[in-house]
């Protein structure tokens, strides 16, 4: 197993070339373009799975591949500067690659069904190919600059995809909002990179780990704050933007303006996961910067807050969008409470079931065609009873809903439960962690509730829009619609990730290798990098670590026996609580929307103010757009522009011309006015001084000149003789 850049590159380059070629041929050869895109991503998937399974074979926690090449080199004399690009593959990367290519492949296939009738069928694949290649490149990146580049490229793709239906007025706003909001985070991210560079002299992950292990960050300050904190915070701000965490979550719900498969790909499964992925990559830095509690709180707030908003959504995609934010909150919470492994697992499981959910929703929406407006319907109040019309979609969606709601045996339970368990552990160690963990549990309850609310409203009960229902065709099985759903829903089973059927080690599958996830994904062992001296510039040597003993699963995660016992204990409690919570959520949803025993309207009217707040997304969009931008930024801009052109340019710059003209006028005035009035008296006085009586004194113009000469000379002489 000897990977070099060129053997890994096809993963990225295949979709990229598909994009590059498609960009030119898409107009004329739409079908070829679509085929190219799909073939490319499948090829990527092939390469990625080879890597993934090779890593599974090695089965070592600290095995990694790290190869670089020089991107550009500005070294001169005593000033070294060199920027490397390259790949860094460890277990986490391999898993991500496998997941991203897999999910993306399925979404590509599904899109051939969903987008087929769209006017810009081909162009969609152009964007998606570029997007996928950027995401894969990001995952493979060995340094932060490279991450940043592809991070931004994905931002661009999401901008294009959200604005895909550019003739809709809202699309422009939504795409711009998405780009700008994430860019806010990106700017901080860039600052974090700069801060790291200033200490490490490189932004390669391995160099950062080495610097952390060597204590290079100790005693370094930027803006009066510890540099590790600044850098970690900067990078985490990037995560907040990209992964739609509080307070920058506002863009994600609007991202629905894009086509539904793109929502699945970008705004659910992969792109938003990039933020969490980055946080995990830089976890040692966050830890060193003492940011964990902050991260946990952000995660908790997001998880809970987004879940509450999801309660009142009627648009099926909006529910899913908020659930995405909420689930991302869990991942961030996981990062914050040190549940590295579980956070990453949640990232993977969530990607699978959320992709499936969005595709299913897409399937539903695509089938519902309003004949009056010629638009697809995505409002849940107009659905209902679709179970009979589209049973396969229903089943796929049900699996995923069970997964997201945290019902045992499903993947969501495995990962989310462990995050919550770790949060509880953290809370028992440090009481301040109670806040995020309680928020987390509350969010889990709401998740179960709103997801099942969505299920009941969509698939159960009587159809509420009869006309629409009648016109909906009964679902026909087609390979590009149902196969992706099928595959994805199969992978919502927890067993693929946990190696135990319950996810709690109660019923174990025989071979420990089935617990690959818990075994292989570990926090970066920065002490492994200690020997790596601060890199002198100019290395291109390959740094794949040679041999590793195959790791064994340490159930105690390196803790003492007593500690481990305590942790297990807490975990069991947590699992129990979350199961109870999940089922009660489902139960309440059923009472309200299935059996209709409880009237949701009662709650709405009781908490009407809260209801309105939720409907308005806690007024945060209003705050940003109406408050900060419309009331603050734009008037400020106008003011500045007015000052610039209306005042500064007009008076201070053009004013010089006026000054000159004024001086000219003064000169003229001296000639005319003063001669006629003031100088007459002045002359008179001077003349009287010589006892000459001049009654009819009228100074002519030329005489004024004489006076001037005389006065000037007198003045000169006077000054000189002093």
């Amino acid at each position, binding site marked *: 197993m000897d990977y070099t850049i060129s053997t890994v590159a096809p993963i990225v380059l295949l979709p990229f070339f598909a994009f590059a070629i498609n960009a030119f041929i898409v107009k004329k050869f739409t079908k070829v373009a679509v085929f190219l895109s799909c073939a490319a991503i499948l090829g990527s998937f092939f390469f990625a799975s080879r890597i993934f399974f090779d890593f599974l074979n090695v089965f070592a926690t600290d095995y990694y591949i790290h190869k670089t090449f020089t*991107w*550009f*080199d*500005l*070294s*001169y*004399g*005593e*000033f070294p*500067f060199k920027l490397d690009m390259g790949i860094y593959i460890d277990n986490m990367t391999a898993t991500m690659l496998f997941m991203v290519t897999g999910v993306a492949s399925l979404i590509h296939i599904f899109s051939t069904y969903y987008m087929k009738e769209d006017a810009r069928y081909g162009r969609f694949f152009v964007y998606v190919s570029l997007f996928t290649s950027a995401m894969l490149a990001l995952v493979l990146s060995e340094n932060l*600059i490279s991450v*940043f*580049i*592809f*991070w*931004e*490229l994905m931002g*661009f793709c999401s*901008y*294009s995809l959200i*604005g895909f239906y*550019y*003739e*809709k*007025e809202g*699309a*422009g*706003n939504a*795409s*711009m909002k998405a*780009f*700008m909001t994430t*860019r*806010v985070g990106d*700017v*901080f991210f*860039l*600052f974090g990179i*700069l*801060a790291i*560079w*200033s200490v490490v002299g490189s932004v390669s992950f391995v160099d950062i780990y080495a610097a952390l292990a060597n204590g290079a960050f100790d005693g370094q300050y*930027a*803006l009066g704050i510890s540099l590790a904190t600044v850098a970690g915070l900067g990078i985490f701000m990037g995560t907040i933007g990209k992964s739609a965490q509080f307070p920058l979550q506002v863009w994600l719900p609007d991202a629905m303006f894009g086509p539904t498969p793109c929502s699945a790909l970008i705004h659910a499964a992969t792109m938003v996961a990039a933020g969490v992925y980055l946080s995990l990559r830089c976890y040692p830095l966050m830890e060193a910067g003492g940011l964990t509690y902050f991260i946990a709180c952000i995660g908790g707030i997001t998880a809970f807050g987004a879940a509450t908003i999801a309660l009142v959504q009627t648009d099926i995609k909006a529910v899913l969008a908020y659930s995405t934010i909420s689930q991302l909150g869990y991942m961030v919470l996981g990062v914050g409470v040190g549940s590295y492994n579980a956070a990453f697992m949640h990232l993977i499981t969530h990607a699978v079931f959320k992709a499936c959910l969005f595709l299913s929703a897409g399937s539903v929406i695509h089938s519902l065609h309003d004949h009056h407006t010629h638009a697809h319907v995505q409002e849940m109040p107009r659905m209902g009873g679709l179970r009979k019309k589209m049973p396969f979609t229903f089943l796929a969606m049900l699996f995923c809903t069970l997964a997201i709601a945290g019902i045992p045996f499903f993947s969501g339970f495995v990962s989310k439960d462990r995050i919550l368990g770790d949060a509880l552990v953290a809370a028992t160690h440090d009481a301040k962690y109670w806040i995020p963990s309680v928020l987390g549990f509350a969010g889990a309850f709401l998740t179960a509730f709103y997801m099942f609310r969505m299920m009941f409203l969509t698939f159960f009960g009587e159809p509420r829009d009869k006309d629409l229902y009648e016109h909906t065709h009964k679902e026909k099985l087609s390979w590009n619609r149902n196969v992706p759903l099928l595959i994805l829903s199969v992978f919502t089973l927890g067993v693929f990730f946990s190696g135990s059927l319950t996810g709690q080690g109660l019923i174990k599958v025989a071979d420990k290798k089935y617990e690959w996830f818990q075994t292989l994904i570990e926090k970066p062992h920065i002490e492994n990098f200690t020997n790596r001296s601060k890199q002198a510039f100019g290395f291109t040597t390959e740094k794949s670590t040679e041999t590793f003993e195959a790791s064994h699963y340490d159930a105690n995660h390196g803790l003492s026996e007593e500690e481990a016992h305590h942790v297990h204990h807490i975990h069991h409690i947590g699992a129990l609580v979350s199961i109870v919570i999940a089922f009660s959520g489902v139960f309440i949803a059923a009472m309200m929307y299935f059996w209709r025993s409880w009237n949701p309207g009662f709650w709405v009217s009781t908490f009407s103010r809260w209801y309105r707040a939720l409907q308005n997304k806690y007024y945060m969009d209003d705050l940003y757009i109406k408050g900060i931008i419309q009331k603050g*930024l*734009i008037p*400020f*801009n*106008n003011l*500045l*522009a*007015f000052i*610039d*052109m209306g005042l*500064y*340019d007009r008076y*201070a*710059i*053009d004013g010089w011309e006026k000054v000159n003209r004024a001086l000219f006028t003064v000169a003229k005035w001296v000639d005319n006015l003063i001669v006629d009035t003031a100088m007459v008296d002045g002359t008179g006085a001077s003349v009287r001084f010589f006892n000459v009586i001049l009654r009819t004194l009228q100074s002519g113009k030329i005489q004024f000149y004489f006076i001037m000469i005389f006065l000037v000379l007198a003045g000169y002489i006077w000054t000189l003789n002093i």
Partner: protein
Amino acid sequence: MQASSNLLNWILWMPFIGVLGILFIPKAKETAIRVWSLINTTVTFALTLVLYAKFDTTVPGMQVPFNISVPWIKSFNIFYKLGVDGISLPMIVLTGLLFLICVLSSWTVKKQVKAYFALFLFLQSTVFGVFFAMDFFLFYVYWEVMLIPMFFLIGIWGGENREYAAVKFFLYTFLGSILMLVGMVALYYASGKGIDSFDILALQGGKFSDLTLTIFGATFSFAKLFFVFLFIGFAIKVPVFPFHTWLPHAHVQAPTAISVILAGVLLKMGTYGFLRIAFPIFPEATIYFSDAIAWLGLINVIYGAFCAMAQTDVKKLVAYSSVSHMGFVMLGLAALTVTGVNGAVLQMFNHGTSTAMMFLMIGVLYERSHHRWIVRPDGSKGFGGLYTQLPKFSIIFIIAMFASMGLPGLSGFISEALIFLGIYERFTTITVLALLGLLLGAAYLLWMFKRMFFGDVIEECKSYTDMNAREIFYMLPLCVAVIVFGIYPSPVLDVMRASVGNLVSMLAKF
């Protein structure tokens, strides 16, 4: 004299040959004039590429084989001295490219074709002169002569308010250059140590550190005082806040091709002046003032961005964005680090391509719409739904726009990133604030894009036709440049590396 040594002469005088040629073509044969200009600029561009190919990237400083030095005024030690190094080469190639493209873009100029192209080629010659001149006097002459064609090009072929803009541009720049002239003459005499020359290379290296002078009893450091003089001279061209207000007028009023040249090449002459003259000659003053320059650059970045956001005229918006982007160059220069200065030079090149694209695109649009309002003064939309109406146009516009805002993968990013890496080492606070400029940069462009391109096609836009082959043809080289140098910047960076490194190491000694 080696065979290649006349190359600079050829490049410098080739456009002038073009001017002479045009003078012999009858006024009525407009197509012939255009074709001749096109051939001429193509040859010039090819020559610049030859220069690029023959350039030795390992040599810091001047490329000796290309040097041309002919005594001009012996009594003053003034030489007709041309040279090229890694800092000027990217600008020269850029000049060759942009003028070629602008000839194509000016194909539709109807008024006084002969005069237009004659002045245009003359302008190119003077611009080359500025970048080639290695004698301060020669530099100054070219710097000033350039104003004359610019004045007429803006004044005759410009928009409604062209006279005002042309005069303003002219006087503003003239004011700066007069200060430069005083500084230049002072340098000549202050050198006094057997140098007595306007040779830029001979003046370099902090020879004036210990000189002082007394004005009205107050003692000034010679270097600092005259650094300020030169600074103002160059800053007006850049333009650095608070000397920036000529720019929006000039840009808005100038015809498309001239806006392109103005933004793409002429603004760079200011920063080029810093690199070539002000910094190497007064290194100690440069160090002393670098904080101030950085703050000014920061103001440029932020202030330009804020003002851009308020604009309703799309060309004015892009003009202010130039102010903002040139602020990044100033920041990079102020950093005085290898990364910063390399980033600045690269940004000069990249901004040249991306802003040129923006202006060209606006020009293309203007030919169809004959107005440039994003929002008209009465509040109605000036454009709407262009994405639907003009798909090709939109795609190229998107490339231009994202290149301009520094999207990674397009050229602007690398230079901005380098600049940030450079300034962070010295000015943390400024870095933080300048990053805000990145954010705002995206904001005003995207907002403009949203208002013009998204949504339904408004009535008056329905008659617009998409870009024709000629327009696409001349946009393509820039698109390619923007993308290729975004992915693989080494062709540009390799060229400038040694020269910039040389400059920075020289500055580092002070």
